[in-house]
């Protein structure tokens, strides 16, 4: 290895004919492979310790009633996080209804018409917005919706989550569409298919697998947000599917249980955390499967 480098540096050969002995190369190869494996293992340690901790501490709390019941008052045994699960799904669903069309739409615009001035402005804005901490987005939604309406609501939470989804989704959509080879667009145009239908039926259709993947990941990330919900949806001890009422969510519920002084609530925090992990893991898994199916097709 060293010898090869010296040779090239000295300009003796353009392509070194012999790079050390076979043995030396085998040793270098082994050491490098070992280092790579060690790096991978190191990177996996935090991931697996989080998983292990959540599963081992949360598994005892899980039961059918934990998924289906309302939270029990302090001191009472039992109870569940059913309303928080429903609340999270409800708000993430609302947020997706707002965020997916806007995010994907902006991404289509960037890919199709994004070379002009407006495109640069939109792209820059999306980049800045993607870097804004989620708690700031929560405060903004508080100012825009909660203050004027004078109370916390699922809608305010959904808007905050949607704002978080839009920029990353827009950029991901743009990337996916730009990955579609130009030759496919030309094939369609050359058949006398109008440009707008080519964009929808050929380009978007081809990018669809990637788009579904990006959308599911954006949804999964929104489901894991706490800070923007603290200011907007707050919490609710009861079932709620009214968009203008405060609403429980798994993340805020975990937060409340975790900062409480009660041992029993700490256990429930772990249980709720495991629920959230299963939810998000499930979504990511679906995203993976969808992407895998597409790339095989």
């Amino acid at each position, binding site marked *: 290895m060293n010898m090869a480098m010296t040779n090239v540096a000295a300009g003796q050969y353009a392509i070194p004919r012999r790079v050390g002995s076979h043995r030396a190369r085998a040793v270098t190869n082994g050491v490098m492979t070992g280092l790579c494996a060690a790096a991978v293992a190191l990177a996996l340690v935090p991931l697996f310790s989080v998983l292990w901790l959540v599963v081992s501490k949360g598994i005892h709390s899980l039961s059918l009633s934990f998924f289906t019941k309302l939270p029990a008052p302090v001191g009472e045994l039992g109870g569940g996080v059913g309303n928080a699960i429903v609340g999270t799904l409800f708000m993430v669903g609302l947020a997706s209804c707002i965020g997916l069309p806007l995010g994907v739409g902006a991404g289509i615009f960037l890919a199709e018409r994004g*070379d002009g001035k407006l495109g640069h402005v939109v792209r820059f804005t999306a980049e800045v917005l993607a870097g804004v901490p989620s708690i700031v987005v929560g405060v903004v939604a508080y100012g825009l919706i909660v203050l004027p309406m004078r109370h916390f609501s699922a809608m305010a939470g959904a808007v905050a989550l949607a704002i978080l989804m839009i920029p990353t989704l827009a950029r991901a959509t743009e990337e996916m569409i730009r990955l579609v*080879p130009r*030759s*496919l667009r*030309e*094939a*369609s*145009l*050359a*058949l*006398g*298919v*109008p440009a707008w*239908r*080519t964009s929808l*039926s*050929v380009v978007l*259709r*081809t990018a*669809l697998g990637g788009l579904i993947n990006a959308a599911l990941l954006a949804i999964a990330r929104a489901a894991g947000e706490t800070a923007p919900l603290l200011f907007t949806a707050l919490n609710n001890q009861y079932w709620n599917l009214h968009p203008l009422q405060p609403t429980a969510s798994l993340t805020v519920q975990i937060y409340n249980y975790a900062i409480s002084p009660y041992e029993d609530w700490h256990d429930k925090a772990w249980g709720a955390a495991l629920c959230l992990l299963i939810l998000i893991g499930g979504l990511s898994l679906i995203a993976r499967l969808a992407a895998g199916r597409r790339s095989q*097709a």
Partner: protein
Amino acid sequence: MNVALSTPVADTARPKLEVQKLDAWFGNVHAVKDISLGVDARSVLAIIGPSGCGKSTFVRCLNRMHELTPGARSEGRVLLDGEDVYAVDPVYLRRRVGMVFQRPNVFPTMSIRDNVVAGLRLNRVRADYEAIVERTLTQTALWDEVKDRLDASAIALSGGQQQRLCIARALAVEPEVLLMDEPASALDPIATAKIEELIDELKQQYTIVIVTHNMQQAIRISDKTAFFYMGVLIEHGTTQQLFTRPERRETEDYVTGKFG
């Protein structure tokens, strides 16, 4: 379908396609320089010339694909049955002037069957799709190879099969003119032979402009040949004459392999 271009009165003296003083640019690159030529109905014109001499750019001007490239523009006239193609909607023009590209570009999300009728389906044209699939795939000598797996993905086909599928797809919309930009350059000799055979058959019905790198191929399949060099039309005549008694020195050098 051809609302904008109603059928003109047949004029046997007039070429199907007439190019007058055509210039094309990519930004500042002047790729096609003042080219004029005509293509007779139901004949094959071969365009030959070294790489980068403007062959692709020229044929892409004929169905107005050239203008889709950012920064590209053109000047001059292209007449289809006497009508200026730059005066009509390019969408309708491209249904009359079909194109086959150098690299097969099947739609990867569609089955073989759906690829063939893509131009019809995407334009919401109602027709007997089954019959069209069988007819065009038979024309392109693909039917026997794929008839049992029409619903399989088109990208499972070999390169040569994909290219024949692209030709079938272009034929399904029943164009009058077919532009082919080096359709066989990525193919093996057997697939190439099949495509040449097909072109010979297609010229009973279609007007064909084919770009080719292969001079033997031009001799085998074309009625007339145009030799391009550095964006300029150097010589244009019957294939026989151009290859056996070229008038210009550059043509002779090129067809005898002295350069290119």
